[in-house]
């Protein structure tokens, strides 16, 4: 049997419309719900972040307190350290001159006698006496080798010949077999007095200040 629907299309439209209305409402509700969900999620994230931030800021406050304590402790140290350094520095300073004179004595040839030693800043002045020219020469060589102590060594001149200082008043007698050239000139009785001026590599440190 053939079915023929002679009703116009808009008759079924009412039903279709009703369905469409429900569908549209559902879509609107879904979109609304989705947005609401998004908003709630963001709000939760914001609340969580806020709690974490507050906790972290509390911790930062505590750390600032520690920093303040640290600055207070650091400020207490310098006055005490100053006194300690001054006392210890003064006691160390007292040992410098004796230490230096002992070092100087190590480089002094033992046949040369020093009659005075004076340190002033980075200059050392010594008055000395050598019995023979050879002793004087060896002393000078020692001083020139003391490069760890001195940068510059100069000595006063020694007199020529004849010299009352050296005790050579004229041609001395020749020894049998010829003149003695071992460094001991015949006729020298007084030895050689001379002055040595030296510049120190490292000047003695100055005294500590308070």
């Amino acid at each position: 049997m053939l079915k023929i629907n002679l009703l116009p299309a808009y008759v079924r439209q009412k039903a279709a419309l009703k369905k469409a209305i429900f569908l549209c409402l559902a879509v609107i509700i879904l979109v609304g719900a989705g947005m609401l969900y998004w908003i709630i999620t963001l709000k939760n994230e914001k609340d969580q972040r806020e709690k974490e931030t507050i906790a972290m800021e509390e911790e930062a406050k505590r750390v600032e307190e520690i920093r303040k304590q640290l600055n207070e402790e650091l400020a207490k140290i310098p006055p005490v350290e100053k006194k300690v350094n001054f006392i210890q520095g003064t006691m160390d300073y007292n040992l410098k001159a004796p230490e230096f004179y002992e070092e100087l004595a190590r480089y002094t040839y033992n046949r040369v006698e020093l009659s005075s030693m004076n340190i002033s800043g980075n200059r050392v002045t010594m008055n000395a006496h050598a019995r023979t020219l050879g002793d004087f020469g060896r002393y000078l060589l020692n001083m020139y080798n003391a490069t760890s102590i001195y940068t510059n060594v100069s000595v006063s001149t020694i007199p020529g010949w004849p010299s009352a200082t050296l005790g050579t008043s004229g041609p001395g007698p020749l020894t049998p077999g010829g003149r003695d050239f071992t460094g001991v000139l015949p006729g020298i009785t007084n030895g050689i007095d001379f002055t040595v001026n030296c510049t120190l590599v490292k000047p003695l440190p100055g005294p500590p200040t308070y």
Partner: protein
Amino acid sequence: MRKPKIQVIHLLIATVVICIGIVASLYYTVITNTKKEIEALNVRYEKASAVASERPKLEKQLAEAKQKFIEMTAKLDVLMKEKMPPISFDDRIAGMMALWKENTQVLGPMIVRWMNRGPLIANGNVSIPAPPVNPNGITYSLLTYNLGSFTVTGDFRSILDHVRDWNNFGRLVRVDGLTLNGQSPNMTGTYTVTMFIIPYGGVGPEIPMAGGGGPGGGGGGGAGYVMEETDKE
């Protein structure tokens, strides 16, 4: 039956418009603001986190600083006990009287005994300057006395040992200008001695009845006596 006025297409268009309206309004009001707030919170969090991350380092530095202070203080206590008389100007009058005793009774004989211990022959005139009599004139944290020049006679090593031995004297002294003359064993060593006193504590309040102060006020200006204005505490 009449043809309905509203068509499905109308509904679709309306639905789309409404959805866009809902999304746009909620996004540009609520969601954008919330995102901005979250960003601001992140910035605060990062800033606080940077500070908080220094905690271990700062705690370590604090412990080290406390330890260093304790060690320095202990060292200073030992040195002060060994080298300094028990003088404090927290109470100016008491401190001044303690200084009187130090200058007039203690220090001179102490130096004379020290120099005469032997084995060297010692020469020199020990002269301790007069102490101050105005407590308000005492404002300094370091007292310096120039005790003058001393000469000892002996052999080279003994003279050097004698100079080094000043570090064992009961007060803090500085030995300057050591000059050696003559020949061992009758060598003479000449040097100058300067003594220092570091008072304990600080400087207390002025005494109103004592009048105005001033450096070395009231007769503290004996030869060789200096109150150094090196540190006012």
